[in-house]
Protein backbone atom coordinates (compact mmCIF):
# COMPACT_ATOMS: atom_id res chain seq x y z
CA UNK A 1 0.00 0.00 0.00
CA UNK A 2 1.65 3.19 -1.21
CA UNK A 3 -0.98 5.64 -0.08
CA UNK A 4 1.31 7.16 2.57
CA UNK A 5 3.99 7.73 -0.02
CA UNK A 6 1.56 9.36 -2.45
CA UNK A 7 0.14 11.64 0.23
CA UNK A 8 3.59 13.22 0.56
CA UNK A 9 3.59 14.13 -3.14
CA UNK A 10 2.55 17.64 -4.23
CA UNK A 11 0.45 16.30 -7.14
CA UNK A 12 -1.67 14.24 -4.72
CA UNK A 13 -1.97 17.09 -2.23
CA UNK A 14 -3.00 19.44 -5.01
CA UNK A 15 -5.55 16.90 -6.19
CA UNK A 16 -7.10 16.59 -2.72
CA UNK A 17 -7.25 20.36 -2.29
CA UNK A 18 -8.67 20.97 -5.74
CA UNK A 19 -11.15 18.15 -5.17
CA UNK A 20 -12.29 19.74 -1.91
CA UNK A 21 -12.87 23.13 -3.57
CA UNK A 22 -14.85 21.59 -6.40
CA UNK A 23 -16.85 19.38 -4.04
CA UNK A 24 -17.87 22.29 -1.82
CA UNK A 25 -19.00 24.50 -4.72
CA UNK A 26 -20.82 21.67 -6.50
CA UNK A 27 -22.45 20.55 -3.27
CA UNK A 28 -23.52 24.12 -2.60
CA UNK A 29 -25.26 24.74 -5.92
CA UNK A 30 -26.54 21.14 -6.28
CA UNK A 31 -29.77 21.54 -4.27
CA UNK A 32 -30.76 24.54 -6.40
CA UNK A 33 -29.91 22.68 -9.60
CA UNK A 34 -32.21 19.84 -8.53
CA UNK A 35 -34.95 22.16 -7.28
CA UNK A 36 -34.94 24.20 -10.47
CA UNK A 37 -34.81 21.10 -12.67
CA UNK A 38 -31.55 22.18 -14.29
CA UNK A 39 -29.78 18.83 -14.66
CA UNK A 40 -29.68 19.26 -18.42
CA UNK A 41 -28.28 22.77 -18.03
CA UNK A 42 -25.42 21.26 -16.00
CA UNK A 43 -24.80 18.66 -18.68
CA UNK A 44 -25.00 21.24 -21.46
CA UNK A 45 -22.73 23.84 -19.86
CA UNK A 46 -20.19 21.19 -18.89
CA UNK A 47 -19.94 19.80 -22.44
CA UNK A 48 -19.69 23.32 -23.75
CA UNK A 49 -16.67 23.78 -21.48
CA UNK A 50 -14.96 21.53 -24.03
CA UNK A 51 -15.77 24.03 -26.78
CA UNK A 52 -14.47 26.87 -24.62
CA UNK A 53 -11.29 24.94 -23.89
CA UNK A 54 -10.73 24.26 -27.60
CA UNK A 55 -11.31 27.93 -28.43
CA UNK A 56 -8.96 28.97 -25.63
CA UNK A 57 -6.23 26.70 -26.99
CA UNK A 58 -6.65 27.99 -30.51
CA UNK A 59 -6.74 31.68 -29.61
CA UNK A 60 -4.43 31.96 -26.60
CA UNK A 61 -2.96 28.54 -26.01
CA UNK A 62 -4.84 28.34 -22.70
CA UNK A 63 -7.60 25.76 -22.36
CA UNK A 64 -8.68 26.67 -18.81
CA UNK A 65 -9.04 30.38 -19.51
CA UNK A 66 -10.97 29.50 -22.66
CA UNK A 67 -13.33 27.23 -20.73
CA UNK A 68 -14.02 29.92 -18.14
CA UNK A 69 -14.70 32.65 -20.69
CA UNK A 70 -16.80 30.10 -22.55
CA UNK A 71 -18.87 29.48 -19.41
CA UNK A 72 -19.76 33.16 -19.17
CA UNK A 73 -20.64 33.29 -22.89
CA UNK A 74 -22.81 30.18 -22.61
CA UNK A 75 -24.66 31.53 -19.55
CA UNK A 76 -25.33 34.81 -21.34
CA UNK A 77 -26.42 33.03 -24.51
CA UNK A 78 -28.82 30.67 -22.73
CA UNK A 79 -30.30 33.57 -20.76
CA UNK A 80 -30.80 35.62 -23.92
CA UNK A 81 -32.31 32.78 -25.93
CA UNK A 82 -35.08 31.88 -23.55
CA UNK A 83 -35.58 31.16 -19.92
CA UNK A 84 -38.93 29.48 -19.25
CA UNK A 85 -38.58 25.96 -17.94
CA UNK A 86 -40.08 24.03 -20.83
CA UNK A 87 -38.38 26.06 -23.52
CA UNK A 88 -35.07 26.00 -21.70
CA UNK A 89 -34.15 22.38 -22.37
CA UNK A 90 -34.61 22.64 -26.10
CA UNK A 91 -32.62 25.90 -26.15
CA UNK A 92 -29.78 24.17 -24.32
CA UNK A 93 -29.95 21.25 -26.75
CA UNK A 94 -29.70 23.57 -29.73
CA UNK A 95 -26.78 25.59 -28.30
CA UNK A 96 -25.04 22.41 -27.12
CA UNK A 97 -25.18 20.75 -30.53
CA UNK A 98 -23.81 23.79 -32.30
CA UNK A 99 -21.17 24.38 -29.61
CA UNK A 100 -19.81 20.84 -29.76
CA UNK A 101 -19.57 21.04 -33.54
CA UNK A 102 -17.66 24.30 -33.24
CA UNK A 103 -15.39 22.68 -30.63
CA UNK A 104 -14.53 19.80 -32.92
CA UNK A 105 -13.73 22.25 -35.73
CA UNK A 106 -11.47 24.38 -33.53
CA UNK A 107 -9.66 21.37 -32.15
CA UNK A 108 -8.98 20.28 -35.75
CA UNK A 109 -7.48 23.69 -36.49
CA UNK A 110 -5.19 23.52 -33.48
CA UNK A 111 -1.82 22.00 -34.27
CA UNK A 112 -0.34 21.94 -30.79
CA UNK A 113 -0.69 19.37 -28.08
CA UNK A 114 -4.46 18.91 -27.72
CA UNK A 115 -4.42 16.95 -24.44
CA UNK A 116 -5.44 20.11 -22.54
CA UNK A 117 -8.74 20.17 -24.41
CA UNK A 118 -9.44 16.44 -24.25
CA UNK A 119 -8.48 16.46 -20.55
CA UNK A 120 -11.53 18.53 -19.95
CA UNK A 121 -13.69 15.67 -21.20
CA UNK A 122 -12.40 13.18 -18.66
CA UNK A 123 -10.71 15.34 -16.04
CA UNK A 124 -7.09 15.53 -15.00
CA UNK A 125 -7.07 15.86 -11.27
CA UNK A 126 -3.49 14.67 -10.86
CA UNK A 127 -2.21 17.43 -13.11
CA UNK A 128 -3.33 20.49 -11.12
CA UNK A 129 -0.65 23.19 -11.08
CA UNK A 130 -0.18 25.87 -8.41
CA UNK A 131 -1.65 28.44 -10.77
CA UNK A 132 -4.72 26.32 -11.45
CA UNK A 133 -5.20 25.75 -7.76
CA UNK A 134 -5.23 29.49 -7.11
CA UNK A 135 -7.72 29.98 -9.96
CA UNK A 136 -9.94 27.20 -8.60
CA UNK A 137 -9.85 28.76 -5.17
CA UNK A 138 -10.74 32.19 -6.57
CA UNK A 139 -13.73 30.77 -8.46
CA UNK A 140 -14.74 28.74 -5.43
CA UNK A 141 -14.69 31.78 -3.16
CA UNK A 142 -16.64 33.81 -5.72
CA UNK A 143 -19.32 31.12 -6.15
CA UNK A 144 -19.64 30.54 -2.41
CA UNK A 145 -19.79 34.28 -1.72
CA UNK A 146 -22.52 34.95 -4.27
CA UNK A 147 -24.52 31.93 -3.12
CA UNK A 148 -24.31 33.06 0.50
CA UNK A 149 -25.73 36.46 -0.44
CA UNK A 150 -28.53 35.34 -2.80
CA UNK A 151 -29.44 32.10 -1.04
CA UNK A 152 -32.79 33.14 0.40
CA UNK A 153 -34.27 35.07 -2.52
CA UNK A 154 -32.97 32.37 -4.88
CA UNK A 155 -34.69 29.69 -2.82
CA UNK A 156 -37.92 31.73 -2.80
CA UNK A 157 -37.72 32.29 -6.55
CA UNK A 158 -36.84 28.65 -7.22
CA UNK A 159 -39.74 27.07 -5.36
CA UNK A 160 -42.43 29.74 -5.71
CA UNK A 161 -41.62 32.18 -8.50
CA UNK A 162 -45.09 33.77 -8.64
CA UNK A 163 -45.25 34.74 -4.98
CA UNK A 164 -41.57 35.72 -4.95
CA UNK A 165 -42.20 38.11 -7.84
CA UNK A 166 -45.18 39.52 -5.96
CA UNK A 167 -42.90 40.19 -3.00
CA UNK A 168 -40.46 42.08 -5.21
CA UNK A 169 -37.85 39.36 -5.71
CA UNK A 170 -36.10 39.92 -9.08
CA UNK A 171 -36.90 36.40 -10.27
CA UNK A 172 -35.49 36.69 -13.80
CA UNK A 173 -32.27 38.43 -12.79
CA UNK A 174 -31.65 35.81 -10.09
CA UNK A 175 -32.21 33.05 -12.65
CA UNK A 176 -29.62 34.61 -14.97
CA UNK A 177 -27.14 35.06 -12.11
CA UNK A 178 -27.61 31.48 -10.98
CA UNK A 179 -27.03 30.22 -14.52
CA UNK A 180 -23.72 32.11 -14.55
CA UNK A 181 -22.74 30.65 -11.17
CA UNK A 182 -23.71 27.22 -12.43
CA UNK A 183 -21.66 27.57 -15.62
CA UNK A 184 -18.57 28.70 -13.65
CA UNK A 185 -18.91 25.90 -11.10
CA UNK A 186 -19.43 23.27 -13.74
CA UNK A 187 -16.48 24.46 -15.80
CA UNK A 188 -14.29 24.45 -12.72
CA UNK A 189 -15.48 20.96 -11.82
CA UNK A 190 -14.87 19.76 -15.37
CA UNK A 191 -11.12 20.28 -14.89
CA UNK A 192 -11.27 17.73 -12.11
CA UNK A 193 -13.85 15.04 -12.86
CA UNK A 194 -14.20 15.85 -16.54
CA UNK A 195 -17.03 17.29 -18.53
CA UNK A 196 -18.74 13.95 -18.90
CA UNK A 197 -18.89 13.25 -15.18
CA UNK A 198 -19.77 16.63 -13.70
CA UNK A 199 -23.28 15.44 -13.00
CA UNK A 200 -21.89 13.08 -10.37
CA UNK A 201 -20.88 16.09 -8.25
CA UNK A 202 -23.48 18.68 -9.23
CA UNK A 203 -26.56 16.42 -9.13
CA UNK A 204 -26.05 13.13 -7.29
CA UNK A 205 -25.08 14.51 -3.84
CA UNK A 206 -28.01 16.95 -3.81
CA UNK A 207 -30.43 14.33 -5.12
CA UNK A 208 -29.31 11.98 -2.34
CA UNK A 209 -29.51 14.74 0.27
CA UNK A 210 -33.08 15.70 -0.53
CA UNK A 211 -34.18 12.11 0.02
CA UNK A 212 -32.97 12.41 3.60
CA UNK A 213 -34.25 15.79 4.72
CA UNK A 214 -36.83 18.39 3.79
CA UNK A 215 -34.97 21.27 5.41
CA UNK A 216 -33.28 23.43 2.74
CA UNK A 217 -30.36 24.21 5.05
CA UNK A 218 -29.81 20.58 6.10
CA UNK A 219 -30.03 19.48 2.46
CA UNK A 220 -27.30 21.95 1.51
CA UNK A 221 -24.94 20.71 4.24
CA UNK A 222 -25.63 17.06 3.38
CA UNK A 223 -25.07 17.77 -0.30
CA UNK A 224 -21.69 19.40 0.42
CA UNK A 225 -20.77 16.51 2.72
CA UNK A 226 -21.67 13.85 0.15
CA UNK A 227 -19.76 15.66 -2.60
CA UNK A 228 -16.70 15.87 -0.34
CA UNK A 229 -16.87 12.18 0.59
CA UNK A 230 -17.21 11.17 -3.06
CA UNK A 231 -14.40 13.42 -4.31
CA UNK A 232 -11.82 12.88 -1.58
CA UNK A 233 -12.74 9.20 -1.26
CA UNK A 234 -12.44 8.78 -5.02
CA UNK A 235 -9.03 10.44 -5.14
CA UNK A 236 -7.70 8.38 -2.22
CA UNK A 237 -9.08 5.17 -3.72
CA UNK A 238 -7.45 5.99 -7.03
CA UNK A 239 -4.10 6.63 -5.37
CA UNK A 240 -4.37 3.36 -3.49
CA UNK A 241 -5.27 1.43 -6.60
CA UNK A 242 -2.52 3.10 -8.66
CA UNK A 243 -4.24 2.22 -11.94
CA UNK A 244 -7.87 3.30 -11.88
CA UNK A 245 -8.73 6.95 -12.66
CA UNK A 246 -10.26 8.97 -9.79
CA UNK A 247 -13.38 9.88 -11.78
CA UNK A 248 -14.33 6.20 -11.83
CA UNK A 249 -14.32 6.04 -8.04
CA UNK A 250 -15.90 9.49 -7.64
CA UNK A 251 -18.89 8.58 -9.80
CA UNK A 252 -19.17 5.15 -8.15
CA UNK A 253 -19.13 6.55 -4.61
CA UNK A 254 -21.61 9.26 -5.62
CA UNK A 255 -23.96 6.67 -7.04
CA UNK A 256 -23.54 4.48 -3.98
CA UNK A 257 -24.49 7.37 -1.67
CA UNK A 258 -27.54 8.10 -3.81
CA UNK A 259 -28.72 4.47 -3.68
CA UNK A 260 -28.15 4.31 0.08
CA UNK A 261 -30.13 7.53 0.54
CA UNK A 262 -33.04 6.12 -1.45
CA UNK A 263 -33.07 2.95 0.63
CA UNK A 264 -32.92 4.99 3.84
CA UNK A 265 -35.74 7.22 2.55
CA UNK A 266 -38.12 4.31 1.92
CA UNK A 267 -37.67 3.28 5.53
CA UNK A 268 -38.38 6.78 6.72
CA UNK A 269 -41.27 7.49 4.33
CA UNK A 270 -44.26 6.34 6.46
CA UNK A 271 -43.56 9.21 8.87
CA UNK A 272 -45.27 11.66 6.48
CA UNK A 273 -47.44 9.33 4.38
Amino acid at each position, binding site marked *: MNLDFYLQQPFAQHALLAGAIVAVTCGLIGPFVVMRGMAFAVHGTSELAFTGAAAGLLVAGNAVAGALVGAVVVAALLTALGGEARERDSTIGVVLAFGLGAGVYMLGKYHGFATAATNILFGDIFGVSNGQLVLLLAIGVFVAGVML*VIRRPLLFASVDAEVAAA*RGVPVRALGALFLLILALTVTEAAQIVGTLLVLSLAISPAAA*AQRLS*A*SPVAVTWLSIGFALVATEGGILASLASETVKPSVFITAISFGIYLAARVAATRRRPA*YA
Partner: protein
Amino acid sequence: MTAVVELRAASMRFGGRVLWDGLDLAVEPGEFVAVLGPNGAGKTTLLKVLLGLLELSGGTASVAGLPPREGRHRVGYVPQLRAFDRELPLRGRDLVRFGFDGHRAGVARGDGDARRIVDEALDAVGAGSYADAPIGRLSGGEQQRLRIAQALLGRPPLLLCDEPLLSLDPSHQQEVTALLDRRRREDGTAVVFVTHEINPVLPYVDRVLYLAAGRWAVGSPAEVFTSERLSSLYGATIDVVHVRDRIVVLGADGEVEACHHHIRE
Protein backbone atom coordinates in the same frame (compact mmCIF):
# COMPACT_ATOMS: atom_id res chain seq x y z
CA MET B 1 -59.42 56.85 7.54
CA THR B 2 -57.45 56.58 4.33
CA ALA B 3 -58.25 53.84 1.89
CA VAL B 4 -55.84 50.87 1.68
CA VAL B 5 -56.45 50.52 -2.03
CA GLU B 6 -57.37 53.44 -4.19
CA LEU B 7 -58.06 53.22 -7.91
CA ARG B 8 -59.06 56.37 -9.78
CA ALA B 9 -60.27 56.28 -13.37
CA ALA B 10 -58.10 53.21 -13.76
CA SER B 11 -58.08 51.58 -17.15
CA MET B 12 -56.32 48.61 -18.63
CA ARG B 13 -55.91 47.82 -22.30
CA PHE B 14 -54.04 45.05 -24.06
CA GLY B 15 -53.58 45.87 -27.73
CA GLY B 16 -56.95 47.16 -28.83
CA ARG B 17 -58.91 45.31 -26.16
CA VAL B 18 -60.26 47.16 -23.13
CA LEU B 19 -60.27 45.03 -19.97
CA TRP B 20 -61.76 47.75 -17.81
CA ASP B 21 -62.04 51.48 -18.10
CA GLY B 22 -62.67 54.38 -15.70
CA LEU B 23 -62.57 52.07 -12.70
CA ASP B 24 -62.99 53.83 -9.34
CA LEU B 25 -62.57 51.80 -6.20
CA ALA B 26 -61.51 52.58 -2.65
CA VAL B 27 -61.04 49.68 -0.27
CA GLU B 28 -61.23 50.64 3.41
CA PRO B 29 -59.12 49.03 6.16
CA GLY B 30 -60.68 45.72 7.21
CA GLU B 31 -62.97 45.55 4.20
CA PHE B 32 -63.46 42.29 2.27
CA VAL B 33 -63.91 42.91 -1.46
CA ALA B 34 -64.53 40.01 -3.82
CA VAL B 35 -63.54 40.48 -7.46
CA LEU B 36 -65.65 38.44 -9.85
CA GLY B 37 -66.14 38.06 -13.57
CA PRO B 38 -65.61 35.64 -16.42
CA ASN B 39 -62.18 34.41 -17.51
CA GLY B 40 -60.23 37.10 -19.31
CA ALA B 41 -62.17 39.94 -17.66
CA GLY B 42 -58.95 41.21 -16.06
CA LYS B 43 -59.34 40.03 -12.46
CA THR B 44 -55.78 38.74 -12.11
CA THR B 45 -54.53 41.74 -14.11
CA LEU B 46 -56.04 43.98 -11.45
CA LEU B 47 -54.10 42.13 -8.74
CA LYS B 48 -50.90 42.46 -10.76
CA VAL B 49 -51.45 46.20 -10.92
CA LEU B 50 -51.88 46.33 -7.13
CA LEU B 51 -48.70 44.26 -6.73
CA GLY B 52 -46.78 46.70 -8.90
CA LEU B 53 -46.08 44.04 -11.54
CA LEU B 54 -48.11 45.79 -14.26
CA GLU B 55 -48.67 49.46 -15.04
CA LEU B 56 -52.14 50.88 -15.62
CA SER B 57 -52.93 52.05 -19.16
CA GLY B 58 -54.60 55.09 -17.61
CA GLY B 59 -55.64 56.53 -14.25
CA THR B 60 -53.91 56.03 -10.91
CA ALA B 61 -53.54 53.28 -8.34
CA SER B 62 -52.21 53.42 -4.82
CA VAL B 63 -51.65 50.85 -2.09
CA ALA B 64 -51.44 52.02 1.52
CA GLY B 65 -51.04 55.55 0.17
CA LEU B 66 -48.04 54.64 -2.02
CA PRO B 67 -47.60 53.75 -5.68
CA PRO B 68 -48.03 49.94 -5.90
CA ARG B 69 -44.33 49.27 -6.59
CA GLU B 70 -43.35 51.04 -3.39
CA GLY B 71 -46.23 49.66 -1.34
CA ARG B 72 -45.33 46.08 -2.23
CA HIS B 73 -43.94 45.15 1.16
CA ARG B 74 -47.21 46.15 2.80
CA VAL B 75 -49.13 43.59 0.79
CA GLY B 76 -49.70 39.90 1.51
CA TYR B 77 -50.40 37.66 -1.45
CA VAL B 78 -52.10 34.27 -1.54
CA PRO B 79 -52.02 32.53 -4.95
CA GLN B 80 -54.10 29.63 -6.16
CA LEU B 81 -53.13 26.13 -5.12
CA ARG B 82 -50.27 24.61 -7.04
CA ALA B 83 -48.65 21.22 -6.97
CA PHE B 84 -45.23 21.03 -5.33
CA ASP B 85 -42.85 18.21 -6.20
CA ARG B 86 -43.13 15.52 -3.51
CA GLU B 87 -39.36 15.48 -3.03
CA LEU B 88 -38.98 19.27 -2.85
CA PRO B 89 -36.76 20.02 0.15
CA LEU B 90 -39.03 22.62 1.68
CA ARG B 91 -41.05 22.32 4.88
CA GLY B 92 -44.20 24.14 5.81
CA ARG B 93 -42.23 26.40 8.13
CA ASP B 94 -39.81 27.29 5.30
CA LEU B 95 -42.71 28.42 3.12
CA VAL B 96 -44.04 30.59 5.95
CA ARG B 97 -40.57 31.97 6.64
CA PHE B 98 -40.46 33.42 3.10
CA GLY B 99 -42.98 35.91 4.43
CA PHE B 100 -40.40 37.07 6.97
CA ASP B 101 -37.20 37.41 4.95
CA GLY B 102 -37.55 35.40 1.73
CA HIS B 103 -37.08 38.49 -0.40
CA ARG B 104 -34.04 39.72 1.49
CA ALA B 105 -30.57 39.06 0.12
CA GLY B 106 -27.59 38.77 2.45
CA VAL B 107 -26.59 36.55 5.30
CA ALA B 108 -29.43 35.55 7.64
CA ARG B 109 -29.86 37.72 10.70
CA GLY B 110 -31.97 37.27 13.78
CA ASP B 111 -32.63 33.56 13.34
CA GLY B 112 -34.12 33.32 16.82
CA ASP B 113 -36.60 36.10 16.07
CA ALA B 114 -37.50 34.49 12.77
CA ARG B 115 -38.23 31.19 14.44
CA ARG B 116 -40.50 32.75 17.05
CA ILE B 117 -42.36 34.84 14.48
CA VAL B 118 -42.79 31.87 12.14
CA ASP B 119 -44.01 29.68 15.02
CA GLU B 120 -46.58 32.32 15.97
CA ALA B 121 -47.75 32.59 12.36
CA LEU B 122 -48.04 28.80 12.15
CA ASP B 123 -50.08 28.65 15.37
CA ALA B 124 -52.37 31.43 14.21
CA VAL B 125 -53.51 29.29 11.28
CA GLY B 126 -53.45 26.01 13.21
CA ALA B 127 -50.62 24.59 11.09
CA GLY B 128 -48.23 23.74 13.93
CA SER B 129 -48.70 19.98 13.61
CA TYR B 130 -47.44 19.77 10.03
CA ALA B 131 -44.94 22.62 10.10
CA ASP B 132 -42.01 20.25 9.61
CA ALA B 133 -43.52 18.02 6.91
CA PRO B 134 -42.34 18.43 3.30
CA ILE B 135 -44.62 20.83 1.50
CA GLY B 136 -45.19 18.45 -1.42
CA ARG B 137 -46.88 15.92 0.86
CA LEU B 138 -49.48 18.23 2.37
CA SER B 139 -53.10 18.46 1.28
CA GLY B 140 -54.39 21.45 -0.66
CA GLY B 141 -56.15 22.84 2.42
CA GLU B 142 -52.99 22.53 4.51
CA GLN B 143 -50.91 24.25 1.82
CA GLN B 144 -53.34 27.15 1.58
CA ARG B 145 -53.30 27.59 5.37
CA LEU B 146 -49.51 27.91 5.17
CA ARG B 147 -49.90 30.41 2.34
CA ILE B 148 -52.19 32.52 4.49
CA ALA B 149 -49.73 32.32 7.41
CA GLN B 150 -46.94 33.46 5.06
CA ALA B 151 -48.97 36.29 3.55
CA LEU B 152 -50.14 37.66 6.91
CA LEU B 153 -46.83 37.21 8.75
CA GLY B 154 -45.80 40.85 8.51
CA ARG B 155 -49.34 42.00 9.44
CA PRO B 156 -49.80 43.83 6.12
CA PRO B 157 -52.71 46.26 5.80
CA LEU B 158 -53.75 44.57 2.54
CA LEU B 159 -54.15 40.94 1.53
CA LEU B 160 -54.52 40.04 -2.14
CA CYS B 161 -55.88 36.59 -2.99
CA ASP B 162 -55.93 35.10 -6.48
CA GLU B 163 -58.40 32.19 -6.57
CA PRO B 164 -57.02 30.60 -3.40
CA LEU B 165 -59.96 28.17 -3.25
CA LEU B 166 -59.55 26.79 -6.75
CA SER B 167 -59.27 22.97 -6.78
CA LEU B 168 -59.98 22.68 -3.05
CA ASP B 169 -62.91 20.48 -2.02
CA PRO B 170 -65.93 22.28 -0.46
CA SER B 171 -65.07 21.50 3.16
CA HIS B 172 -61.52 22.80 2.71
CA GLN B 173 -62.91 25.84 0.89
CA GLN B 174 -65.05 26.61 3.92
CA GLU B 175 -62.18 26.04 6.34
CA VAL B 176 -59.79 28.25 4.40
CA THR B 177 -62.25 31.13 3.95
CA ALA B 178 -63.30 31.00 7.60
CA LEU B 179 -59.65 31.10 8.63
CA LEU B 180 -58.96 33.98 6.28
CA ASP B 181 -61.90 35.89 7.69
CA ARG B 182 -60.89 35.29 11.31
CA ARG B 183 -57.28 36.31 10.67
CA ARG B 184 -58.18 39.48 8.78
CA ARG B 185 -60.61 40.55 11.51
CA GLU B 186 -57.91 40.08 14.17
CA ASP B 187 -55.52 42.35 12.29
CA GLY B 188 -57.98 44.66 10.54
CA THR B 189 -56.56 43.61 7.17
CA ALA B 190 -58.31 44.68 3.98
CA VAL B 191 -58.87 41.75 1.60
CA VAL B 192 -59.18 41.84 -2.18
CA PHE B 193 -60.23 38.35 -3.17
CA VAL B 194 -60.34 37.26 -6.81
CA THR B 195 -62.70 34.35 -7.33
CA HIS B 196 -64.93 32.87 -10.03
CA GLU B 197 -67.44 31.68 -7.42
CA ILE B 198 -69.18 34.04 -5.00
CA ASN B 199 -70.86 31.44 -2.78
CA PRO B 200 -67.90 30.19 -0.71
CA VAL B 201 -67.05 33.78 0.32
CA LEU B 202 -70.60 35.20 0.41
CA PRO B 203 -70.90 35.15 4.24
CA TYR B 204 -67.79 37.34 4.58
CA VAL B 205 -67.96 39.70 1.64
CA ASP B 206 -68.60 43.40 2.23
CA ARG B 207 -68.55 44.47 -1.40
CA VAL B 208 -68.25 42.95 -4.83
CA LEU B 209 -66.36 44.26 -7.86
CA TYR B 210 -67.81 42.56 -10.93
CA LEU B 211 -65.79 42.83 -14.17
CA ALA B 212 -67.32 41.74 -17.48
CA ALA B 213 -67.13 42.67 -21.14
CA GLY B 214 -65.01 45.78 -20.51
CA ARG B 215 -67.50 47.10 -17.95
CA TRP B 216 -67.57 46.95 -14.17
CA ALA B 217 -69.94 47.25 -11.21
CA VAL B 218 -69.25 47.79 -7.51
CA GLY B 219 -71.61 47.31 -4.59
CA SER B 220 -72.82 44.93 -1.93
CA PRO B 221 -73.55 41.38 -3.14
CA ALA B 222 -77.28 42.17 -2.95
CA GLU B 223 -76.81 45.25 -5.14
CA VAL B 224 -74.58 43.66 -7.78
CA PHE B 225 -76.13 40.21 -7.99
CA THR B 226 -79.41 41.21 -9.62
CA SER B 227 -80.64 40.11 -13.03
CA GLU B 228 -80.85 43.70 -14.18
CA ARG B 229 -77.35 44.73 -13.10
CA LEU B 230 -75.56 41.69 -14.50
CA SER B 231 -77.57 41.76 -17.74
CA SER B 232 -76.45 45.31 -18.41
CA LEU B 233 -72.85 44.38 -17.54
CA TYR B 234 -72.71 41.41 -19.88
CA GLY B 235 -74.90 43.07 -22.52
CA ALA B 236 -76.98 39.88 -22.58
CA THR B 237 -79.88 38.43 -20.66
CA ILE B 238 -78.72 37.08 -17.32
CA ASP B 239 -80.92 35.64 -14.59
CA VAL B 240 -79.82 35.76 -10.99
CA VAL B 241 -81.54 33.23 -8.76
CA HIS B 242 -81.27 32.99 -4.99
CA VAL B 243 -81.47 29.42 -3.72
CA ARG B 244 -81.53 29.31 0.09
CA ASP B 245 -78.47 31.44 0.90
CA ARG B 246 -76.71 30.76 -2.37
CA ILE B 247 -76.59 32.81 -5.56
CA VAL B 248 -76.87 31.17 -8.97
CA VAL B 249 -76.17 33.17 -12.11
CA LEU B 250 -77.84 31.88 -15.27
CA GLY B 251 -76.97 33.07 -18.76
CA ALA B 252 -78.76 32.33 -22.03
CA ASP B 253 -76.58 29.27 -22.47
CA GLY B 254 -76.73 27.90 -18.94
CA GLU B 255 -75.22 28.64 -15.60
CA VAL B 256 -72.68 31.46 -16.01
CA GLU B 257 -70.84 30.84 -12.76
CA ALA B 258 -70.46 27.15 -13.45
CA CYS B 259 -68.94 27.94 -16.83
CA HIS B 260 -65.87 29.44 -15.23
CA HIS B 261 -64.41 26.26 -13.86
CA HIS B 262 -61.28 26.40 -15.91
CA ILE B 263 -58.06 25.57 -14.18
CA ARG B 264 -55.42 28.09 -15.07
CA GLU B 265 -51.71 27.41 -14.92
